[in-house]
Every structure is written in structure tokens, then in C-alpha cells.
């Protein structure tokens, strides 16, 4: 079997920065990503189909992304794109599929940088064609230059919603309105975190700039508490707080959460429920070490910190990998990591403010008729009924309702099911065992399996 010193999963900011740092320490690096180019979600197609005009919303971040991608291309790491990892074995060998063929390599150190996924915002009718995530629409903008057409509504809360809206306007697109679903009292809740946030004022100023751009363009921003999507074969209307409006596209957003589908499937890799982010995250030390030797996690997959913090975490983890592989002494690692740890702390300073401003929407308020598990079409009401019958948590619920057992394997519904069950039982979500995932973490064909033999 092929042996690799450092195997990195994910070509977002964390994975790219880790690869560059590891190569600078002389390590052999193999990087896998299921997308077809570097950048991850945040720097997707930067320098290609996504090249924002100077000074336009997102342009600063794209420039940082381009620098990272160029440095990665020059660093000498082996990159394999269109490569979907689906197993991590006891000896740190990993298996991935690429072009219909499965491949395997054993990693001296395995660094997982799986990034974030959009936290689901379950509302009645959210499975209709025409309803998708704000992040999804932004991906279409970056990867194919698509802009919303017709009556496009944005709903939910969080920085990405405002950034995307500003990006659409900057490109001549139109938005029918924004439904602000953020819980009331955000600024009051967040005020005590403001001094820390002001140590990195760029984040706040950019956000206020996006909001000002929307106000200038006359986009209605409407505070709403409840929202539903309606339609037959596709979305035709939205209903909010007693109002009914025509809609061709509804984009939902409730922040992003760590993607833990792979780390949770690794035996003995401990996770905890993160209250502020309403999701599971792996238990890590400052170097990114998991509870499994030789397996590290960096970037938003470790807890949401944004692109810059992710890149710093990637470099820090790469230095630790170099120590584990004998390329650095502990003293050398500490000396190199010192400034990076300080910079990461500075980048993370605004996070408590943002977490307090946009706390994930409460699961207890999801109406009974709303589908939670999109794959198996299981409603919140059925989840609550099964909980009343005695289902203790998401893993036992599978036997009752198959929630979390469809093609997505609980990627989308997992945290929502956990929060709804916890609310129904009157306990904090962290008191329930999170949905266990298993390898293979994506559908694999018989042909791919056979190619391993």
C-alpha cells in the first residue's frame, strides 16, 4: 500500500495553508478534495469564474484566497481533486474514490480539514424545488456566475446572508426582500462581546457595509418570526407572519456548522455538543490533535472560525504534524507556532460577538408538520412523537423512523434532530448522544469496492 507522510483532506483555507506549511518543513504531502479545484467553499473558483471586481463585496477575501491557491500550486504538494474520501481505517490508511475507482494510502499523520456546512433552517415547505441555502446560491454565483431571477427572497440570519445579497446587487441582480429571522435582542445580547470584536473591526465594518448597500438599493428588510414555503411541483409563494408573497426562489440561512461526517465515523475520536453553534465538534487541543493519535483536525470542521482562522489552524496543525513525523523538534515547533497562535486568537476575537448576535434558531419552534430529515421525509412532529414513546436520542430514533438513514446519512438533519429531541425531552442537546456516522461515509458502487481487491 502507498505510504504518505502527511495526508490532508480538504483543499479549503485550512488544508491549503497546512500543505504549504508542511512542504516548507520538508514533508511529503498528499491532499485530497472531492471538488474539482482548490479553494474549498469560501475560495471556490477564485481566479477562475469567481473574480469579484476590486472593492466589491467579497473582493478582499477572494484576493486572500487567490494568494493562498497560488502559493499552494507552487508548494510541491500532490493534489488529487474529484477525490472523495470515504473510509479511515485503524492504521490511518484512508480510502477514497476518484473517477469511479477506489484508491488507498496509509498516512503517517492524517490532517482532516472538512470545513463547514450550512446549518439547516427547517421550515414548512423547505423541500420544494426553488428553496435552497444562501450558501448554495453563492456557490452557483462563484462556480457558474448564476444570479437569482424572478422574485428571489432571502431569509434567516448571519453574515453570509448579507454578503450574498450585497454580491448579487453589485452584479446587477435583484432581490425581492430579506426576511430577518434573527431572535430579537441580538445587539443587547452581543453588546458585552463588542469590545473583543472591535479588536478586529474589519469584520464588523464589512458587515455594516453590506447592510448599507442593501438599504441604498431599497431592498426591503422585514423582521419576521415564522416562515413557510408553498407550492406544488415547485416554490410559488412564501408566507411570513400572516403575509403571502409570490416567490420564485427562497434562500435560507442560519449560519454554518462544522462538517463532522468523517471525524465522527472514526472510532474513538471524541466529539462534544457546541452550544453556541448548535452542532457537534471534535474535541481538540490547540494543535488540532484529536483523541486519536496521528489524526488532526483544522479549520471550520473543528469549530467555526472563518477562513483566516482556518488557514492559521492549518499551519499550526502542519507544524505539529512535522513534529510528530520528526521534521521538527518540540522547541522548533513551538517557536514557529507562537506568532500563529497569537494571530489565530486575534482572528477568533469577534466570534463570541457574532455567536451572540446570531444564535442558531431554536429547534423547539419548528412546527410539527415540518420535514426535518429531508431524505426520509420525517417531520418534526413524528420525531417528537417517537421521543414521547421513549426514543432517547438520534441513534435510537433511526429504528423508529429512519431519520438520518437516507443518502445524506444525517449530514443535514443530524443536529436539528438532536436539538428537537432534546427540547422534547427537556434536556440540553449535549445530553443526547449525537448521530453516529459510519464508513463508507458516501455511497460507493460495487465497482469501486471491487477495484480495491
Amino acid at each position, binding site marked *: 500500500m502507498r505510504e504518505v507522510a502527511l495526508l490532508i483532506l480538504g483543499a479549503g483555507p485550512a488544508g491549503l495553508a497546512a500543505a504549504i506549511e508542511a512542504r516548507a518543513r520538508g514533508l511529503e504531502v498528499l491532499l485530497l478534495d472531492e471538488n*474539482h479545484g482548490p479553494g474549498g467553499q469560501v475560495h471556490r473558483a477564485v481566479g477562475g469564474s469567481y473574480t469579484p471586481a476590486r472593492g466589491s463585496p467579497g473582493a478582499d477575501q477572494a484576493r486572500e484566497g487567490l494568494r493562498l491557491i497560488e502559493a499552494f500550486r507552487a508548494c510541491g504538494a500532490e493534489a488529487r481533486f474529484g477525490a472523495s474520501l470515504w473510509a479511515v481505517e485503524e492504521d490511518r490508511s484512508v480510502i477514497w474514490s476518484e473517477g469511479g475507482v477506489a484508491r488507498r494510502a496509509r498516512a503517517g499523520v492524517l490532517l482532516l480539514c472538512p470545513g463547514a456546512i450550512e446549518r439547516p433552517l427547517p421550515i414548512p415547505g423547505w423541500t420544494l424545488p426553488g428553496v435552497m*441555502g444562501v*450558501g448554495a*446560491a453563492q456557490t452557483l454565483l462563484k462556480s*457558474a456566475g448564476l444570479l437569482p431571477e424572478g422574485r428571489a427572497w432571502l431569509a434567516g440570519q448571519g453574515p453570509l446572508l448579507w454578503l450574498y445579497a450585497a454580491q448579487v446587487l453589485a452584479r446587477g441582480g435583484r432581490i425581492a426582500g430579506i426576511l430577518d429571522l434573527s431572535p430579537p435582542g441580538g445587539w443587547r445580547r452581543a453588546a458585552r462581546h463588542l469590545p473583543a470584536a472591535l479588536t478586529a473591526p474589519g469584520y464588523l465594518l464589512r458587515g455594516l457595509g453590506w447592510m448599507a448597500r442593501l438599504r441604498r438599493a431599497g431592498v426591503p428588510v422585514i423582521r419576521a418570526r415564522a416562515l413557510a414555503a408553498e407550492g406544488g411541483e415547485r416554490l410559488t409563494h412564501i408566507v411570513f407572519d400572516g403575509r403571502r408573497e409570490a416567490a420564485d426562489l427562497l434562500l435560507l440561512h442560519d449560519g454554518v456548522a462544522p462538517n463532522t461526517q468523517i471525524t465522527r465515523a472514526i472510532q474513538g475520536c471524541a466529539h462534544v455538543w457546541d452550544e453556541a453553534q448548535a452542532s457537534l465538534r471534535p474535541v481538540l487541543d490547540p494543535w488540532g490533535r484529536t483523541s486519536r493519535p496521528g489524526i488532526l483536525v483544522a479549520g471550520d470542521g473543528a469549530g467555526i472560525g472563518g477562513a483566516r482562522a482556518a488557514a492559521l489552524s492549518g499551519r499550526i496543525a502542519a507544524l505539529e504534524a512535522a513534529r510528530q513525523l520528526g521534521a521538527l523538534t518540540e522547541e522548533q515547533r513551538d517557536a514557529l507556532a507562537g506568532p500563529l497562535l497569537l494571530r489565530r486568537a486575534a482572528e477568533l476575537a469577534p466570534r463570541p460577538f457574532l455567536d451572540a448576535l446570531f444564535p442558531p434558531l431554536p429547534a423547539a419552534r419548528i412546527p410539527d408538520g415540518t420535514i426535518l430529515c429531508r431524505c426520509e*421525509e420525517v417531520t418534526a412532529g413524528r420525531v417528537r412523537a417517537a421521543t414521547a414513546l421513549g426514543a432517547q436520542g438520534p441513534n435510537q430514533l433511526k429504528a423508529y423512523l429512519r431519520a438520518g438513514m437516507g443518502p445524506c446519512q444525517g449530514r*443535514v438533519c443530524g443536529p436539528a434532530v438532536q436539538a428537537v429531541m432534546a427540547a422534547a425531552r427537556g434536556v440540553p442537546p449535549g445530553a443526547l448522544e449525537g448521530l453516529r456516522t459510519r464508513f463508507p461515509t458516501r455511497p460507493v458502487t460495487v465497482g469501486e469496492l471491487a477495484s480495491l481487491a
Partner: protein
Amino acid sequence: MFRRSGPTDCTILWEGRALPARAGEPLAAALLAAGVVAFRETPVSGAPRGPFCLMGACFDCLVEVEGVPNRQACLVPVTPGMRAGPQRGARGAP
């Protein structure tokens, strides 16, 4: 739902119908830009579904590509002349 802000450079075949596309873009983007909103029908209720997350997580954009079912249209890059169609109900054995 969506419109393009840039040019196309090839065509793909969706249920035998030629649609404009751009090589290398996600198949899901090409279909949405051409006005295709429902990519599949669910195995549970037969309800129509379209892409939701566009980043490989939700599996709501499952389609058949070149006769292979269960492909995530958001992760499949367009190649000129690519043949694809909706996935109705449960996938068959690939």
C-alpha cells in the same frame, strides 16, 4: 430561478433535450440556469426535489449521468455532450 451572467460554450443533453452549458461548471448549475428545477423524485413519497446545498452534503440533486445513477449533480463537472436525466425514486444497481 437563476440566470447566467456569463457565456456558455457547449451543450449537454438532459432527457435527450439539448441545454446550453459551460464546460467545467457543476452540472447542477447548468441545469438550474436552463430552468430545470426538479432533478429527481424521492423514493419515499415521489415528491419532486431540486438541489439544496450545492456542496455535496444534502444528496438532493441526485441524477443519472451517462447511465450511472446516484450522481450528485453539484459535484459532477460539465463535459460537452454530457448525457444526464432525472433520478425517479430509488436508484437502480449501478
